[in-house]
């Protein structure tokens, strides 16, 4: 089950199974030969541009498109009014001006009555070139009546606050989910409140309360969103090339939104230049390109520019959290209660399983052993861009990990206890697995203390603390931050988890050609993770076919079976399992064919990698390649095999998998300037079996860089007028190699007991785990100043202000 076994090497120099190998897709990427949506150019293709609202909240009094329409080269200009005139033959609303979101809310495709966030789609220009389309956008004259915007989530529920969703007949800014709930709770409110009250009354206990905000950030993939839609008038077939992490789910949504027959829709996601959740949602631009090709009869391309991507597509986080942690004075955690105000923007467009409107935030009880936990999440509308997905955070586990790991550090500070010692005292023990958490999650496996100790050893933890004490005596401020995180990834099971009614399970197909080469067809979608490499390795591991002989196909709904796509670290837990299972089906078919060829019973055969042979007579056997040819040959096949070895499978996970890790960050803070330097970052991940350790390391590297970015600089704030202050890469700062130390990685391997190859998924581990480690390190450095908490991002000014006892409110404009 683990990677400990000897793995044979193929003629191509690759492991026939698990082990590090370079990504096959890099051959084209590093040569600049990838094929992204913007590389798609169809004959006669038209281009487009979107007019976006300069206001966060305004009534549209009139729109004059005549000058734009008169510009030579302009083919059509669509407005919300025009879309209202197009009847939609579906249950999801009666015209095209509105569309459903992934959270059963509605979102404007083009604004009709009001604009509700800066950057909202107001008009769509189709023209012969992108330049002409942009020129025409400037000629559209919109008469807006500005309204007071609601930019502060804390004000959204004030009685006098302007109502954003008057289109729905709302009288306040509350959000109601599909089950009719206005708040989302988890855990036991009563027992948790009682435990906290008992602790407050007990002189041997403490209760620490801390407000922490995880401000709004953006996935900011290198490739922005876009699509090329082509409706073939002759066949009635719609082909959509699009930046989608979930092509099958998108196809179904388009069938519902556009009322088109699903068999006539083909969604193709070519190479995707990063997703991070940004490409899970269905955006107005995609829908407009479809409407554009229907209206014009020509292919229509829509591609966002950077500002459009940052200002209008799915943000992440925006959680205002107040946590309470109760513990005994000797450091045994008793209970945690968290209250969240969740800013969802103008439309509730968050992507998560229907039964989990706060995503998997409820896993916030963390990696520790205590009986009582409870959380309440209150979502509100504001005049900000709608949320597409809880990005790169396994459905908001980043927020969950952040709040518990900050609370544990605040508790350590209160108790005057070393944060490592406090964690070691409370971590779950190996014998407690499978472990049911106070909020009902069943953690599959883990050796938490072991992983923690590996991280402390790599870090030289005791030595670091000694160095810190010496430096403090000299007036130098270094900090050591720990984060111990547990994720739950790989949604479903389908009975519990669906998006818009689509169960979260994934199909797979494996074909083995007569020469023994294979093609694996996946429902999940790579955005740069290296699926073409790792999934071939899983088949290689199961069947002994060299990875270079296996092609992995993903992204084309006509070529792959149905499934829900890649986000929330679900590819390896779900489709990784499917790949193993479908390979095992092929192996069993091969056994029957081999038995026929060897004239023995299938029961007399035994498997060694790549070959069935007669038990006790190893010489008599057939390789998988020989069997593949036999299965297509004139060999008389027995009952049960009609020919070929091909197989299909659908994997419906019995439970989530629970990757976890121990991270330690070391920072130096210059108190004169507030500048934070991340000196070291140690990450010990346990993601179960590592199919390709090199790619696991790559995922962890990217995630840590991302976490350093969020902890220190990434932010979308708004001013009170509603202006987005993170609308370009001059304003929305992403970390560079200059801000990242050379990462120090370690591993422990605790396979998932319910996953066919024991893998747990690692796509988001480091993004989830690292921000808390960085923030905890900075707070540790600032402890001598009496600072216990400051919100991310810890920019120089924010750190300096924290030292002055006057931290910045980060979600609003700095004044």
């Amino acid at each position, binding site marked *: 089950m683990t990677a400990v076994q000897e793995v044979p090497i193929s003629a191509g120099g690759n492991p026939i199974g698990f082990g590090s190998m370079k990504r096959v897709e890099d051959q084209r990427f590093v040569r600049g030969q990838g094929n992204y949506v*913007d590389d798609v150019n169809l004959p006669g293709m038209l281009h487009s541009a979107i007019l976006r609202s300069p206001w966060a909240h305004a009534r549209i009094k009139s729109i004059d498109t005549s000058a734009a329409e008169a510009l030579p080269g302009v083919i059509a200009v669509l407005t919300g009014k025009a879309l209202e005139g197009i009847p939609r033959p579906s249950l999801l609303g009666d015209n095209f001006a509105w569309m459903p979101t992934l959270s059963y809310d509605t979102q404007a495709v083009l604004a009709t009555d009001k604009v509700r966030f800066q950057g909202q789609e107001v008009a769509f220009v189709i023209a012969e070139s992108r330049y002409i389309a942009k020129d025409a956008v400037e000629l559209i004259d919109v008469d807006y009546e500005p309204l007071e915007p609601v930019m502060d989530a804390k004000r959204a529920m004030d009685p006098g606050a302007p109502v954003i969703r008057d289109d729905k007949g709302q009288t306040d800014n509350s959000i109601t989910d599909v089950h009719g709930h206005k708040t989302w709770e988890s855990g036991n409110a009563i027992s948790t409140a009682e435990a906290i009250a008992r602790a407050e009354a007990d002189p041997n206990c403490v209760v620490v309360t801390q407000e922490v905000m995880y401000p709004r950030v953006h996935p900011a993939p290198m490739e922005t969103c876009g699509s090329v839609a082509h409706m073939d008038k002759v066949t009635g077939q719609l082909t959509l090339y699009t930046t989608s992490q979930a092509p099958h789910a998108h196809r179904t949504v388009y069938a519902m939104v556009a009322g088109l027959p699903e068999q006539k829709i083909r969604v193709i996601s070519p190479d995707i230049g990063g997703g991070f959740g940004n490409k899970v949602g269905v955006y107005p631009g995609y829908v407009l390109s479809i409407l554009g090709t229907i209206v014009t009869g020509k292919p229509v391309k829509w591609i966002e520019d*950077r500002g459009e991507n940052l200002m209008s597509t799915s943000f992440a986080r925006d959680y205002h959290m107040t946590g309470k942690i109760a513990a005994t004075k000797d450091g045994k955690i008793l209970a945690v209660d968290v209250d969240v105000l969740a800013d969802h923007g103008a439309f509730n467009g968050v992507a998560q399983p229907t039964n989990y409107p706060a995503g998997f935030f409820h896993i916030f009880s963390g990696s520790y052993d205590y009986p009582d936990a409870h959380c309440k999440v209150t979502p509100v509308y504001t005049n900000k861009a709608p949320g597409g997905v809880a990005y790169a955070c396994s459905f908001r586990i980043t927020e969950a990990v952040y709040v518990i790991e900050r609370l544990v550090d605040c508790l350590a500070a209160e108790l005057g206890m070393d944060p490592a010692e406090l964690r070691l005292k409370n971590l779950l023990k190996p014998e407690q697995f499978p472990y049911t958490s106070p909020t009902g999650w069943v953690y599959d496996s883990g050796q938490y203390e072991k992983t923690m100790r590996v991280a402390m050893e790599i870090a030289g933890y005791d030595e670091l603390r000694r160095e810190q004490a010496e430096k403090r005596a000299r007036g130098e401020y270094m900090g050591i931050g720990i984060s111990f995180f547990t994720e739950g990834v790989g949604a479903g099971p389908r009975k519990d988890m669906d998006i818009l009614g689509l169960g979260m399970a994934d199909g797979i197909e494996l074909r083995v050609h007569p020469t023994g080469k294979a093609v694996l067809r996946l429902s999940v979608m790579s955005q740069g993770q290296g699926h073409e490499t790792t999934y071939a390795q899983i088949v290689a591991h199961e069947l002994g076919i060299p990875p270079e002989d296996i092609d992995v196909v993903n992204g084309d709904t006509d070529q792959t079976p149905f499934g829900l796509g890649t986000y929330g670290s679900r590819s390896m837990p779900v489709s990784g399992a499917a790949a193993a299972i479908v390979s095992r089906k092929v192996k069993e078919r091969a056994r029957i064919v081999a038995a026929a060829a060897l004239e023995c019973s299938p029961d007399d055969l035994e498997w060694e990698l790549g070959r069935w042979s007669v038990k006790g007579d190893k010489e008599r056997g057939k390789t998988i390649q020989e069997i593949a040819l036999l299965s297509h040959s004139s060999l008389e096949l027995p009952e049960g095999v009609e020919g070929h070895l091909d197989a299909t499978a659908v994997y419906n996970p019995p439970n989530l998998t629970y990757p976890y890790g121990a991270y330690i960050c070391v920072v130096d803070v210059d108190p004169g300037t507030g500048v934070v330097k991340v000196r070291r970052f140690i990450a010990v991940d346990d993601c179960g079996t590592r199919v390709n350790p090199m790619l696991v390391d790559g995922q962890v590297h990217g995630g840590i860089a991302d976490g350093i970015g969020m902890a*220190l600089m990434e932010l979308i704030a708004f001013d009170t007028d509603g202006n987005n202050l993170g609308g*370009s890469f001059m304003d929305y*700062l992403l970390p560079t190699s*200059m*801000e990242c130390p050379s990462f120090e990685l370690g591993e422990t391997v605790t396979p998932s007991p319910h996953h066919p190859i024991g893998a747990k998924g690692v796509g988001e581990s480091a993004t989830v785990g690292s921000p808390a480690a960085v923030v905890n390190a900075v707070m540790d450095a600032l402890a001598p100043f009496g600072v216990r908490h400051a919100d991310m991002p810890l920019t120089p000014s924010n750190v*300096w202000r924290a030292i002055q006892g006057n931290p910045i409110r980060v979600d609003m404009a*700095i004044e």
Partner: protein
Amino acid sequence: MQTPAPVDYVRATSVADALSLLQQHGDEARLLAGGHSLLPMMKLRLARPEILVDINDLDELRGIRVDGNEIVIGAMVTHAEILNSPILFEHYPIFREAEKVIADPIVRNKGTMGGSMCQADPAEDLSAVGAALRGTVVIQNAEGRRTVPMREFHEGPYETKVADGEILVEVRYPILPGSGSAYEKVERRSGDWAVCAAGACVTISGGVFSSVGIGIGAVNAEHFTATGAEAFLVGKEPTAENIATAAQMAADSCDPSADQRGPADYKKHLAMELTKRALTRAAAAAVAVHLTKNGA
């Protein structure tokens, strides 16, 4: 994809040619140097010149050279060339220190000294350096050349003494034997513009400051400098106390505004802190030079 508004383009063959093209097209024409400020603004349609006059072929505007007791930097010298220039490093290490923290290698490979000066962003680093070193800007128009002291060059944010139909051809810096110089900058991330930056160039003789140049960027210091603090230090010993007093005077003369880089109180604090650090290191370097000379 970002798309500028329609624009014409012409490649000048000489400074004279560029000047006549500018004259021909009036205020609708813009010079194109490295393009790292102008082109992004055009792509965002914040700038929409009708014609670009490309001056990248003009070798007369290139080169860093010593001319008598001055160092001359041509308008088309790139950031990367300044960063790697042995002449500048020998006389003014402040250039290397500043260039190391200007933008990123890609921008530095194309962005030019002249473009930076003429863009005149309030957080522009070479302006702070130029103020500290008391450079002189040479501007050419159809009538000929004229010079403007660095400390009179800026008219305000994004505005300089270079008028329509004029070209900045070079900046000249007096060589100060025995000087020490240093540059300090705080940025939110490498490659970002300064939250605040401060540079200093000093000479010391007889144990006291004989000349002091201070340059301060991004915090609305008048002409990127702090003349009161400079005057205070001249004739005084380079003690920590004197430097701290001067740094505070410098900060008091700044008038920063709050933005996402930080609140005004923080920026003011930085003006003090960074001026102090720059002066301290510059003084140490100057003293070192002095001692070496004495010892030799």
